[in-house]
């Protein structure tokens, strides 16, 4: 497996009137060719900031990549000039946004909006670009593409618009596609259609996807690997089975316990107590410690390093330290861990 994107020790701060907000505090992950990596976490955990940093779309006026590197095919995107970055955006890396109702330009025809990156990056003639745009509209499942080509966004429904946004993102066959909560603003049936479409297209054009979401159901559906973010850091990363069935970090436990499953009966659904940390004054130790019922003294004093669980599975919790006491994870997690063992043993 070849790595296409590598994020190393990324630190990002925002300068606000109240001070420096350390939104990203040392994020590391890599993305392999053709895989889908899901980044999950609650609002403010830094998932969108990470994705925008890769595209260099953070507002220049108040954001600051303090340290770290984002390597795309070996070159560091944080050091590229604006001009060079324009050649990467839309061509090598493209992005799908959360709200299809606002992410298309209301005064420009759909066709023009799709043609734009094609003409720009692939240097095709207008006619050839038009042909390509109609092909791609057909590919994302829009009926009558010739007619639709000349229409404006307000003549499309929400689901249709997200298909158009996907068409724009895929127009130049990007190597990496960043999807920032692409289904959050859509109703459930349309969500399922869009997810199917993305999986289908990924196979066709062989792109790698970073899928940002807070919906664990969506993650299980699309991802190969999952990174769980909390307080500007990745607290657990592993394959989808590892994170869903053998989670190690208490925060992941909390997330999983708060998700209803088909086995959930009358029991009350779990909710993680407390609120996310204030990243204006990030805590000294583990950011999750104040909300963590399994927290130990060291959690409040020192940030845990990434402990290796398997070759693909890492988690940042002191509970994995050899000296840590054995704790029982919540019931919902125990149930899943038993299922995981069953899967492993091939039952």
């Amino acid at each position: 497996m070849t790595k296409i994107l590598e994020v190393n020790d990324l630190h990002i701060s925002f300068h606000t009137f109240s001070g420096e907000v350390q939104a990203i505090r040392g994020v590391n992950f890599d993305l392999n060719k053709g895989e889908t990596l899901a980044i999950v976490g609650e609002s403010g955990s830094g998932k969108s900031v990470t994705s925008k940093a890769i595209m260099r779309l953070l507002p220049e006026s108040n954001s600051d990549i303090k340290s770290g590197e984002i390597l795309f095919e070996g070159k560091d995107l944080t050091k590229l000039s604006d001009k060079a970055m324009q050649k990467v955006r839309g061509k090598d890396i493209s992005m799908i946004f959360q709200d299809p109702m606002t992410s298309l330009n209301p005064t420009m025809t759909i066709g023009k909006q799709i043609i734009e990156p094609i003409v720009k990056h692939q240097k095709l003639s207008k006619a050839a670009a038009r042909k390509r745009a109609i092909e791609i509209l057909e590919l994302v499942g829009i009926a009558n593409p010739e007619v639709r080509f000349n229409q404006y966004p307000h003549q499309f429904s929400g689901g249709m618009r997200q298909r158009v946004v996907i068409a724009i993102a895929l127009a130049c066959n990007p190597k990496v596609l960043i999807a920032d909560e692409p289904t959050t603003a859509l109703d459930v049936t349309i969500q399922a259609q869009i997810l199917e479409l993305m999986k289908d297209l990924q196979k066709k054009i062989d792109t790698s996807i970073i899928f940002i979401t807070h919906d664990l159901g969506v993650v299980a559906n699309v991802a190969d690997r999952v990174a769980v973010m909390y307080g500007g850091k990745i607290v657990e990363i592993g394959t989808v089975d590892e994170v869903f069935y053998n989670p190690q970090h208490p925060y992941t436990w909390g997330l999983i316990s708060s998700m209803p499953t088909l086995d959930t009966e009358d029991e009350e659904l779990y909710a993680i107590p407390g609120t996310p940390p204030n990243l204006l004054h990030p805590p000294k130790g583990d950011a999750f410690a104040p909300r963590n019922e399994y927290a130990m003294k060291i959690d409040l004093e020192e940030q845990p390093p990434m402990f290796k669980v398997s070759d693909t599975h890492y988690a940042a919790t002191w509970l994995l330290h050899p000296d840590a006491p054995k704790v029982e994870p919540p019931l919902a997690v125990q149930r899943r861990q038993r299922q995981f063992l069953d899967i492993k043993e091939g039952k």
Partner: protein
Amino acid sequence: MAKYLTQRFVYMVITLFLIASLTFFLMKIIPGTPFSNASKLSEAQLSIMIDKYGLDEPVPVQYANYLLNLLKGDLGVSFQFNNVGVTDIIVNSLGPSATLGALAILFGTFFGIILGVISALKQNTWVDYSSTFIAVLGKSIPSFVFAGLLQYYVGVKLGWFPVAFWRGPEYMVLPTIALAMFPLATASRFVRTEMIEVMESDYITLAKAKGASWFEIAFKHALRNALIPVVTVLGPLVVSLMTGSLVIEKIFGIPGIGEQFVKSITINDYPVIMGTTLLFAALFVVVILIVDLLYGVIDPRIRLAGGKK
């Protein structure tokens, strides 16, 4: 579209009829009559007027006669000049005013939009602050101050352009600049505010994510979305500028309609007042229609109903 336009046309006629009637009766309420100027009028003129307008007849009859004449396209004869038709006065003096107004609007809007876009993109830098400064000057300093300054420095000291009169293109430069400062300032402020808002929107982020350059983002994606409020404020401004600025016309010695209008009011020249009011009203309703049509051109979402393809 044809149906919409016909409908609008009917409304425009009704509007003009109401304005004509209202002005007619308002004028009858104003104390004083054209006869207060009787000493300036000859016997012959007096009799023409009395014959033609029946000023001694009851007001409703006069009103009916006025409307009948209006329908025939006859705006009457001015009291100020011997037997000069109001239509002639308007035709002769509207030309320079409308030309000057149109030039000022084009010049002012064009540079105002550019200034607005630049200051929005360079928000809170010295570029932005200096364009704000220009806008504040343009809005708060009356045009006659600019006129005087331009005449003295550009006209007299530098000798680049003629100081006054209306005899050819080079005569238009200074009055155009003096008159353009206000629309320039207005347009630049509106464009700046709107652009800043538009630049924050998701579709601009998407345009960036497509790899568009800042120029494409500003002029292909953002500007059109920022123009709607600009069109709204500029519409009425177009009318007020095209119908002549008394002050600028006086300062530059331009034979425009602004001067005619004010003069006719001071001496109760009823036909000229009526004629110019109707003209201004007609221009206004036409400009409002054009503005409404422009909305649709700029923003496809407002394109008129019934426009099924």
